[in-house]
């Protein structure tokens, strides 16, 4: 007969209890028809009028009148066709018929009007050109509306593709209920995950799989480990759950598929237009010539970035002609300084008794990895003879100092698709714009005129007007573009057909099949 004393009984019970929890760890299997995507922060309630929820989830749930396609092509969304009046003062939309919100409410002209009036003509959204120029809305037919404007807005159609607030919510949705016409329906959301289920009544191409789980994993290493363990299917995306180039390289060597595609936002080194040292074009030229952009892209971005000297990449519309990438030229940089009246010796450069020292403001919080890029640039400029002092600050200090131009050099990035080129030009290169904590890349009275002209010019003349801005910026060395970071994702082997959407603000799901 089996004898069991108290001690053995307790030990056995404890052991069995421990073992009993292990079978629950079959978590990496049995997820069949569900795509599990990492998100860095909770999605929130997807309120279209608040700047709180995660941007990338909106487009899965809500449609726009017009969708942003590859390279900025305008594709029909809830509007099947649109017509801009010759004077640019009205835009008519033919609305898609037979579309309903996921609560059953039909999408028609009345629903469109209700949605548009939530933000058009509202002061808080005056940063959107079409909202600022809004005059009225006319319902022409049950499925046709016309938006009347006080002045032409050449970028109006592009503005209608952005994420927030322009997308369409069911007029019958209660507060906090994200009900749209998009391919996915929010089943639930919490601070740990958001569950999306396929909208089988979606008017467009329906997702192949039935369910998408957006898992909140704030830590990048934890996301990578979860992908390795098969608990997540895809990680990445600047606006979803950022994947660093170094981590991507590591995952690539471990059997994960790395998807890297040309980006739409440019990382730019900004010269303060108020700093006396930076008003000297010779100094700007020396910095421009003294940086090896290809090395920055290769070494710091592991090749997942494309070196550039243009403000916008070709992945955004009307990005202008391409400027050949100059090779780093220390002698030319020094010659530029000498031509500008600077005298150099082994100790540095001086002019009129002032020595050339540059305050380089960086913030890891504002730009992850900027400290390392800053140090590399510091090293390159030291070889030119420039003294560069890196000031590493937190986000709040960056937000405080950047609008005051309280720096010599600092990092900026353009907004990327679908906000560019009009978004970054209108905000970051115009004296009168109020960009709050974001600051501005460069401002100058001559540039103000050129940008205003470009943004007000429509039709065939728009491209030339935009090019005039780019030419001015290049001729005056007004900014120092560095690289266009690539859009980076890591995909588990069970996922096939992974393709990226047109912008970083969308979730990838189209064409994906699950093994």
């Amino acid at each position, binding site marked *: 007969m089996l004898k069991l004393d108290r001690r053995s009984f307790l030990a056995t019970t404890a052991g069995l209890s421990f073992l009993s*929890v*292990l079978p*629950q*760890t079959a*978590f*990496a299997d049995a997820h069949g028809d569900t795509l599990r995507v990492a998100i860095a*922060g*909770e999605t*929130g*309630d997807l*309120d279209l009028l*608040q*700047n*709180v929820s995660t941007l990338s989830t909106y487009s899965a749930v809500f449609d726009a009148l017009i969708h942003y396609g590859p390279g900025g092509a305008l594709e029909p969304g809830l509007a099947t066709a649109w017509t801009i009046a010759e004077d640019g003062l009205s835009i008519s939309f033919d609305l898609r018929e037979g579309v309903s919100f996921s609560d059953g409410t039909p999408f028609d002209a009345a629903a469109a009007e209700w949605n548009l009036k939530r933000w058009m003509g509202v002061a*808080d*959204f*005056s*940063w*959107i050109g079409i909202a600022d120029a809004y005059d009225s809305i006319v319902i022409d037919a049950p499925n046709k509306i016309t938006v009347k404007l006080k002045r032409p807005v050449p970028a109006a159609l592009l503005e209608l593709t952005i994420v*927030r607030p322009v997308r369409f919510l069911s007029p019958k949705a209660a507060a906090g209920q994200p009900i749209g016409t998009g391919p996915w329906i929010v089943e639930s959301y*919490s*601070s*740990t*995950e958001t569950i999306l289920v396929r909208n089988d009544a979606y008017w467009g191409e329906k997702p192949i799989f039935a369910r998408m789980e957006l*898992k*909140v*994993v*704030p*830590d990048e*290493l*934890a996301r990578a*480990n*979860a992908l*390795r*363990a*098969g*608990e997540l299917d895809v990680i990445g995306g600047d606006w979803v759950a950022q994947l660093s180039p170094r981590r991507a390289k590591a995952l690539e060597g471990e059997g994960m598929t790395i998807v890297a595609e040309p980006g739409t936002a440019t990382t730019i080194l900004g010269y303060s237009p108020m700093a006396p040292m930076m008003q000297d074009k010779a100094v700007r030229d020396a910095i421009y010539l003294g940086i090896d952009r290809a090395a920055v892209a290769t070494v710091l971005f592991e090749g997942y970035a494309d070196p550039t000297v243009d403000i916008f990449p070709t992945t955004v519309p009307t990005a202008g002609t391409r400027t050949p990438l100059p090779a780093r030229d220390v002698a030319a940089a020094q010659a530029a300084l000498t031509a500008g009246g600077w005298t150099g010796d082994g100790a540095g450069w001086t002019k009129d008794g002032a020595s050339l020292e540059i305050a380089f403001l960086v913030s890891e*919080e504002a730009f992850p990895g900027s400290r390392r890029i800053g140090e590399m640039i510091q090293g390159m400029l030291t070889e030119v003879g420039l003294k560069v002092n890196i000031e590493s600050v*937190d*986000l*709040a*200090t960056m*937000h*405080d100092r950047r609008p005051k131009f309280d720096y010599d050099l600092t990092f900026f990035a353009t907004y990327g698709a679908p906000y560019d080129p009009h*978004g970054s030009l209108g*905000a970051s290169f115009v004296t009168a714009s*109020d*960009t*709050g*904590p*974001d600051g501005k890349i460069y401002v100058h009275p001559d540039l103000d005129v050129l940008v205003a002209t470009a943004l007000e010019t429509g039709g065939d003349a728009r491209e030339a007007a935009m090019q005039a801005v780019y030419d001015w910026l290049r001729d005056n060395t007004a900014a120092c573009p560095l690289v266009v970071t690539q859009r980076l994702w890591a995909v588990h082997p069970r996922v096939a057909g992974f393709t990226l959407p047109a912008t970083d603000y969308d979730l990838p799901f189209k064409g994906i099949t699950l093994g």
Partner: protein
Amino acid sequence: MQRMFMRRVGLALLLMLAATALTFWLVTAAPGNVAALIAERAAGAGADGAMIARIADELGLNDPLPVRYARWLGDALTGDFGISLRTGKPMAEEFAERIPMTLALLSGGGVLVLVLSLAMGIAGAVSNGGVADRVLHGLALVGASTPNFFVAAMLVIVFSVWLGWVPTFGVSGLSSWLLPWTTIALFPASVLARVVRVNLQDSMSRPFATTGFAKGLTRRAVLMREALPNIAIPYMTTFGAQFTLMIIGAIVVERVFGLNGVGAFFIEAIRFRDFIGMQAVLTLFVVFFVSVNLLFDLLAMLADPRLRRPRKA
């Protein structure tokens, strides 16, 4: 006893008040503008100077600091800690959702600390200079000097990625708690194991232990029956201090394991300059620190009559 209890509670309340005033001052003195952040939340890129000024005026941000603190304190006493700038939800709602997660982490970790520290400490004392004692001493040293983010990463690599026994993040059953509990418990358990070991050694040289030996008791019997109860007070006091410090560990552990607790919220609040969220969480931390320490002080007083005697002039 009752007077002493009331005095301790009164002191704890005063301490909480002073600490909340200090944190309020520190948070408001930090760089950044609450009004700008709220405007940015409402209007995104459209937040301009006029809107920021209007919000600052509405929130009374231009009032003197003592007035603002008094207003905040009044609201906080009624449970209104404001609305998080990051999530847009009332902090009371955030707490209701997140405190249970943090409590589960701390409770499980606390139990593990208790078990590990006593087991390691007693085993070391029983071995008394033997191989087990030296190994446990080494383990305690490693545990007390390894940062928890590193411990977490190693545990995840081995037990989740390589072996696939437990999930890497989130809560999906009891198994998902094993790594977070181990991570958060390792440091305090190591410290407490040394406390147990050293105090047991000290107790074993005291007269009551000698008497035990004289009565013919074995070393193990003297250790467990005579020495162990005598280390209760130093153990309890150190445990209290280590348990409160575990909330700091929770800040890292929750983030690494994707647990939506108060610690993870705090990190995000700092990153996004969510001043309202930061102040609310810091207040919660203060209340936790002071309350747990008070509780363990009172327990020590209950356990040891010497601590209850009034001090003589």
